[in-house]
């Protein structure tokens, strides 16, 4: 089954990004496809390549980048939300791409299920 995922909150402040990541990992393990993860609202902050969490904590951004690389997952950051919050090509982490809201709608059309993680 093809899943589309929406993440509405940034890393660390809320659990939304953690839950979304663990959901994606489990979906892949169960043999499903993750069609796209769309980062909206403060969710765009998950794409900052400048984050440096403490050594003893998880690295949320790097974890997404790795998942994208290993499983060819499409991580899309909403351009309008990203501009509002200061995420641009110059601070974008590997594996993410910036695009329009149409990518969210397309995910809704193409995916069998949409699951939203937020606050």
């Amino acid at each position: 089954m093809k899943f589309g995922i929406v993440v509405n909150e940034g890393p660390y402040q809320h659990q939304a990004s953690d839950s979304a990541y663990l959901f994606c990992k489990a979906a892949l393990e169960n043999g499903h496809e993750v069609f796209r993860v769309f980062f909206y609202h403060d969710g765009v902050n998950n794409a900052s390549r400048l984050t440096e969490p403490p050594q003893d904590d998880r690295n949320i951004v790097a974890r997404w980048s790795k998942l994208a690389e290993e499983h060819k997952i499409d991580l899309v950051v909403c351009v309008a939300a990203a501009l509002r919050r200061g995420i641009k090509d110059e601070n974008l982490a590997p594996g993410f791409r910036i695009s329009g809201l149409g990518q969210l709608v397309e995910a809704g059309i193409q995916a069998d299920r949409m699951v939203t993680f937020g606050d």
Partner: protein
Amino acid sequence: MSEEGNIKKFMFVNRKAPYGTIYALESLEVVLITAAFDQDVSLAFLDDGVYQLKKGQQTKGIETKNFSPTYRALEGYDIDKLYVEQESLEARGLTEDDLLVDVTVMGRKELGKLMGQQDVVLSF
């Protein structure tokens, strides 16, 4: 933009008040794009989401953009399925006359049934 077979029912569930958080505003942006993809779009307003439609919003004092006129513009995009939950309106001392657009007011059960019939439910 999409073929006949690719029309899905998208419902946008609005449960948050405007201005305290950005969700209402950024949700509207998705609504407009979804309509541009020729999908079957509806909006549900319940809980504090009903406040999004309150007439007379004046945001000069908080120095923020007043986005409430966008709700009036939805008709121009052929978005006319706006559902408002009766119980949420009543709890907040509001009536249909307080709202800045024409909506369909319905009871909680009817709204819940409509939600169940959607292909995609988005809430922010």
